[in-house]
């Protein structure tokens, strides 16, 4: 009989190797899925994982990788802080939208003035927007004990409606011939987040890297990071140690909201360019997968973000070359999280074969 035996401490080795195992298992299961859809599974997997990096047009796809990974990493870093402490911000998608609206709003307010300070102000606007949106569930949780999962998620839908209202109303391009959507910020030199569009670099990538480094220092070298980890691993011990749970909730939700807002701003001022009705691209939800795949560890998240970006770009190529449906990639990403959570069993438990003893 197979018996699960809880490990006294999570295994470090398994903790590092489960993401790799999960990716391999997803490739196998994904290959089966693609096979069921009538595509050549080996070709599909190769297209997704190999083509963007080393294929014929890799020089075009490689910078795209960073463009996709930047918002994912930025959001996932924020989420991971809360997830570590058992504070579940599921509404990053909403904070991302509000960050984009606020940031773009600041930029458009200055149009057509050209000045060096416009972009920094937009960054502040985006960060504050995302922060404020995340403060709603945070304050409700601290003050009334309301479940932050449900509130932050409901606010995603509210933010989506707000986005539609902004794209059709307040932020609509007055010279857009009545089409919904704002002015394109890429045509507005002071408000674009591109460092160099030819190389494919924008400030969001720099911000993502800075966030990774900051999160690493915070978690490993700072008292607050220690408190976050302690609360997640041993809530009772954390209470005895005098950790203030309210402060932690406000910090974790605030930080993740701010980072999601920043991701939204860099996206709207760069790769996307304008506020449109369907501006949001589910980065806020995919980032949840990224955070778990990266084991809630800053460096892990950086790698996981790049891998997830790879599936996006590879999925796009497979869509064009093989006619693989876009939704297949979404299923693929969902599978990844499944396998990861399932394999995590090996991190926390030992599997033992036990011969049945005579009672």
């Amino acid at each position, binding site marked *: 009989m197979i018996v699960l035996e809880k490990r006294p401490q999570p295994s470090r080795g398994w903790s590092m190797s489960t993401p790799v195992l999960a990716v391999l298992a997803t490739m196998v299961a994904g290959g089966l899925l693609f096979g069921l859809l009538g595509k050549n599974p080996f070709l599909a997997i190769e297209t997704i994982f190999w083509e963007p990096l080393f294929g014929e047009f890799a020089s075009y796809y490689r910078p795209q990788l960073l463009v996709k990974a930047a918002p994912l990493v930025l959001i996932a870093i924020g989420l991971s802080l809360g997830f570590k402490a058992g504070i579940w911000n*599921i509404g990053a998608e909403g904070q991302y939208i509000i960050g984009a609206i606020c940031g773009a709003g600041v930029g458009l307010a200055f149009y057509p003035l050209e000045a060096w300070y416009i972009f920094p102000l937009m960054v502040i606007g985006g960060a504050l927007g995302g922060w404020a949106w995340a403060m*709603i569930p945070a304050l409700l949780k601290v003050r009334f*004990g*309301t479940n932050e999962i*449900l509130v932050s998620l*409901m606010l995603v839908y509210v933010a989506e409606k707000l986005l539609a209202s902004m794209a059709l109303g307040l932020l609509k391009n007055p010279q857009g011939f009545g089409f919904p959507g704002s002015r394109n910020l890429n045509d507005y030199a002071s408000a674009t987040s591109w460092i160099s569009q030819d190389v494919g670099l924008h400030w969001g990538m720099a911000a993502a890297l800075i966030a990774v480094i900051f999160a690493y220092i915070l978690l490993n070298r700072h008292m607050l990071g220690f408190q976050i980890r302690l609360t997640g691993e041993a809530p009772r011990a954390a209470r005895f140690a005098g950790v203030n749970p309210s402060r932690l909730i406000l910090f974790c939700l605030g930080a993740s909201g701010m980072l999601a807002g920043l991701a939204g701003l860099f996206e709207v001022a760069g790769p996307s360019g304008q506020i449109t009705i369907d501006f949001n691209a589910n980065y806020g939800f995919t980032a949840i997968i990224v955070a778990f795949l990266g084991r809630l560890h800053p460096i892990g998240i950086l790698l996981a973000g790049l891998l997830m970006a790879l599936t996006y770009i590879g999925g796009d190529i497979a869509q064009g070359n093989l006619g693989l449906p876009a939704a297949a*990639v979404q299923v693929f990403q969902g599978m990844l999280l499944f396998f990861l*959570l399932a394999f995590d069993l090996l991190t926390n438990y030992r599997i033992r074969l036990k011969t049945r003893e005579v009672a």
Partner: protein
Amino acid sequence: MDLSQINPVLLIASLMVAATPLLLATIGELVVERAGVLNLGVEGMMIVGAISGFAVAVETDSAWLGFLAAAVGGAVLSLLFVLLTQVALANQVASGLALTLFGLGLSSLMGQSYVGIKPPAMARLDIPVLSDLPVIGPILFRHDPLLYIAILIIAGVWAVLTFTRAGLILRAVGENHDAAHALGYKVVRIRIMAILFGGACAGLGGAYISLIRVPQWTEGMTAGVGWIALALVVFASWKPWRVLLGAYLFGGITVLQLNLQAAGVAIPVEYLAMSPYVVTIVVLVILSADKSRAPASLGRPFHATS
């Protein structure tokens, strides 16, 4: 603006239709939570139910078979949640999210060839005399059969939880799984059955949207109903009959804002469309003061050590 366009009788009748998906998903999740499991994958199970029900109904030209397939589809997806949380002992919050993300992708993959098709209609109840009564007729006796079945499910869940031994065991597992285990009840087995029931109910709720309420298939058409269902369980303080009250309240808000949109109220459409979500948050805040009603083992993993 012309509020006189809104007919109160039709409003109540359509409110009941709007509330039914919510009703089905919520009662399922209520049973799951009473067994001590928090399944955040309701939205995913609903949307998979919506498309599996729709596909089967279109292929077989029978709405009944569609609903059956929807229940099976929802339950099959919840089986993944069972594997993760009951077998692999994974975190329930993360597993539920995974279920929703996966379900949303899976449903749009399954539904690709079903966009823009009309499903077979389900015959409505038509009782001579009763259905023709003014006011009462359209409200009580002129709906599709599933609306009544949903109410029967609530009555059934209430009766089972309150009066039967099975209900008592289910509640015991949810309140204190260690004690239930010590008494010799199969905690994991009971929870698996509860989760499967929740999945089937969510699937039915999803198919109600795609087969009766809308009726057609569009991607992501559940639009957060599954999440509102999770909030409604809290609203109902884990009591079956209050689910009915809560679902009709939310159905009422949804229908009323749609009617106000149609009547051309001076509030922009987007802000009206926000209202169900905002109201959910407000309700959650009001009710979060009292947590004493939540099952004590809710969300805690159970691992029997021998």
